[in-house]
């Protein structure tokens, strides 16, 4: 599968880069072997220019980009790992950690898109993994016909790297 890249500029001049590409790095080799023809696709988003508050038009562009890719690739399962390293601009130090912020925002965006487009056959699983000092958030978007594969991914996140 070829990587898909889109760059867009917001009304305030900020530039965003989104990549959707095959990404099996989050799974154990055992889980990868059970995928058959399903492609695990990772989402990576980076603001390249600017520091303005992210506007609604940007969020919609991100939603549309992911949705277009997902519709075009019937065997894709989208995985979004919430970055915990890069801070969120315009948030105070005492607010929630960046990965939790990203997780909540991504969830809201998904729900809004589904409501606006009457989508009922696509599911989002939000996996929260409680670490010692921090939490990790992992999102999996899949068609309901791929529920069994999503379960494999969930099980693998929980125990796949223990083996």
């Amino acid at each position, binding site marked *: 599968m070829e990587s898909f*890249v*889109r*760059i*867009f*500029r*917001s*009304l305030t001049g900020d*530039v965003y*880069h989104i*990549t959707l590409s095959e990404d099996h*790095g*989050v799974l154990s080799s055992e889980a990868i072997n059970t995928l058959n023809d399903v492609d695990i696709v990772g989402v*990576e988003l*980076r603001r*390249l*220019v600017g520091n303005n508050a992210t506007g609604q*038009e*940007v969020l919609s*562009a991100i939603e549309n980009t992911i949705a277009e890719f997902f519709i075009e690739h019937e065997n894709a399962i989208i995985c979004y*790992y919430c*970055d*915990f*390293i*890069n801070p969120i601009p315009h948030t105070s130090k005492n607010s929630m950690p960046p*990965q939790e912020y990203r997780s909540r925002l991504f*969830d809201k965006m*998904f*729900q809004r898109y*589904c409501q606006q487009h009457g*989508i*009922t056959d*696509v*599911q*989002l*699983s*939000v*996996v*929260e*993994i*409680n*670490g*010692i000092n921090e939490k*990790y958030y*992992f999102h999996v978007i899949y068609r309901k016909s791929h529920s069994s594969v999503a379960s494999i991914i*969930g099980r693998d*996140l*929980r*125990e*796949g*790297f*223990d083996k």
Partner: protein
Amino acid sequence: MTNTEYITIKNASRKVLQRMRQIGVEKAQRLQEVQKRWDLGEYKNTEVVQL
């Protein structure tokens, strides 16, 4: 009706947590690389969509 389900893993092993952290570090490095390529002008032939 919501299309979202929430799963919390509270007792992940040290190995799983290490792997989660490593995935995050690797992702941050890839994002830095994208920034570097942009700064070097390597995306000048890529269309920038004006919203």
